[in-house]
């Protein structure tokens, strides 16, 4: 933990900024005396200039921001994290999830800390399996408006929606490629649920798997070359990785028998997934060493944030933000009925 102090930042920005810096997990916030870095800033809503100085008053970050106070605080917080730690922050990001608040499953979006909750879909049916693009501008989800499960693409700024995958059978579980140009998903038109990669315009569908089991929940490697997913071809569902352009699948050995819903970390080093052993728990496998550890004894559907350190997952009644290094967990979305299937922009 690096000692920092937030000093002389306006009341419109400071509370959000301090919360963001605290939630990053990288800092201990205290008084200026003894701090390695001093965070200050001029202005409030509309326009703001942020400054970070080191112990010898050297300026390490000086940058202007404009927009809503909360958005400014999130952007400044991420720049502070990046400047001091060298790693991306998670503050300026969007999450989405499924909630039963209305009595039906609909898709909602929110800031990473659970504020600004918005109901995105009003399908009054079953709207599930949301996936945000890395830039947070687009969301794909599974909807049953046609009577079958199809994949829809929503432009979040305009609200424009189109049905992009509508093959016979069930189309579900979209995941955006890191560049946002393609989705991986499960398609059953061939008579079995298989993994496909398809352009976000719905064109160029390419089948990746050929098994008798169920392939589901693809997640891309950060370079876009591989996809990790779950397959029950050999019994209970387990994790596999496969080249996104096609090729041989390779088992990801986690040591657990029932593993689903993997998420590949943005730094490429780890895969988080759901373990079913009686209840659900969250595991993380280090792809380099092969070591697996349980990072949360309950919860499911974990997904990595941009810092490859925090995860969000659901435990039924809440979405939880988990620091996978310290184990600190904070409920960020509560009181919205049953919540599930979180996704997180980077």
């Amino acid at each position, binding site marked *: 933990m690096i000692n920092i102090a937030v000093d002389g930042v306006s009341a419109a920005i400071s509370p959000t900024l301090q919360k963001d810096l605290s939630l990053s997990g990288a800092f201990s916030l205290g008084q200026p005396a003894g701090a390695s870095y001093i965070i200050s800033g001029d202005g409030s809503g509309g326009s703001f200039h942020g400054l970070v100085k080191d112990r010898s008053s050297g300026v390490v970050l000086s940058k202007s921001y404009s927009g809503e106070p909360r958005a400014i605080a999130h952007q400044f917080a991420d720049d502070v994290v990046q400047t001091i730690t060298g790693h991306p922050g998670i503050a300026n990001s969007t999450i989405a999830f*499924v909630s039963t608040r209305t009595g039906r*499953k609909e898709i909602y979006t929110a800031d990473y800390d659970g504020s600004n909750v918005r109901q995105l879909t009003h399908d009054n049916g*079953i709207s*599930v*399996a949301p996936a945000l693009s890395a830039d947070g501008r687009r969301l794909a989800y*599974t909807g*049953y408006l*046609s*009577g*079958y*499960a199809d994949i829809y693409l929503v432009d979040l700024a305009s609200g424009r929606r189109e049905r992009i995958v509508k*093959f*016979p*059978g*069930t189309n*579900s*579980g979209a995941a955006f490629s890191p560049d946002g140009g393609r989705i991986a998903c*499960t398609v*059953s*038109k*061939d*008579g*079995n*649920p*298989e*993994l496909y990669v398809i352009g976000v315009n719905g064109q160029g569908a390419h089948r*990746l*798997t*050929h*098994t*008798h*089991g*169920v*392939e*589901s*929940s693809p997640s891309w490697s950060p370079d876009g070359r591989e996809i990790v*997913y*779950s*397959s*029950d*071809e*050999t*019994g*209970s*569902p387990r994790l*596999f990785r496969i080249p996104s352009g*096609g*090729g*041989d*699948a390779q*088992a990801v050995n986690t040591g657990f028998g*029932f593993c*689903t*819903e993997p998420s590949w970390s943005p730094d490429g080093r780890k895969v988080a997934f*759901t373990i*079913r052993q009686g209840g*659900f728990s969250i595991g993380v496998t280090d792809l380099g060493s092969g070591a697996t550890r349980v990072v949360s004894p309950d919860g*499911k559907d974990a997904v990595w944030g941009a810092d490859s350190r925090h995860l969000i997952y659901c435990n039924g009644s809440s979405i939880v933000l988990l620091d996978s290094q310290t184990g600190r967990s904070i409920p960020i979305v509560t009181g919205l009925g049953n919540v*599930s*299937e979180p996704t997180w922009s980077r």
Partner: protein
Amino acid sequence: MVRLLIRCMKLSFLPAFAICTVLSLSSCALFKKNNGGEGGADGDYVTGTPLPERQEGTGFMSDNVNRSQFQPVYFGFDSFTVSDAELAKLDTVAGAMKRMPNNIIVAGFTDNRGTEEYNRGLGERRAEAVREALIGMGVNASRLQTVSFGADMPADPGDSEAAYAKNRRAEFGVVKK
């Protein structure tokens, strides 16, 4: 030479699967969950009978679909094997389909003890196992659609073994002419 071999395997595989389906559905476990560890492998073989084009505007929950004509087929935990005990239900459906012109949408469902997206895949796999069995009994593949609702439409919303058993199912939606 290798390509020729693969083609032969592909050809011989199909009848083998069909026979297996007709004679003993439970032996299909060999295919579904015990093929020697090549899970997810990109092999050059067929894994199911392709679905026909959808009839747009008609889905399993549509008003013009009769969902109560046939008994649901039930499954074991995390399984898409149609058990011998459930086979008589499929005989009934296959027999009726030979006498009536209607198409059927097979809908697959799961209990809530898996993760959501895996359950959607498992429900679809159950629907397609039922579809494949009906095809094996002589029903034309073009008359059978599938859809999965995963754990989202339980027959019994309870959290008991009895409820789970009722929810692991495939239902038949007869599309009215």
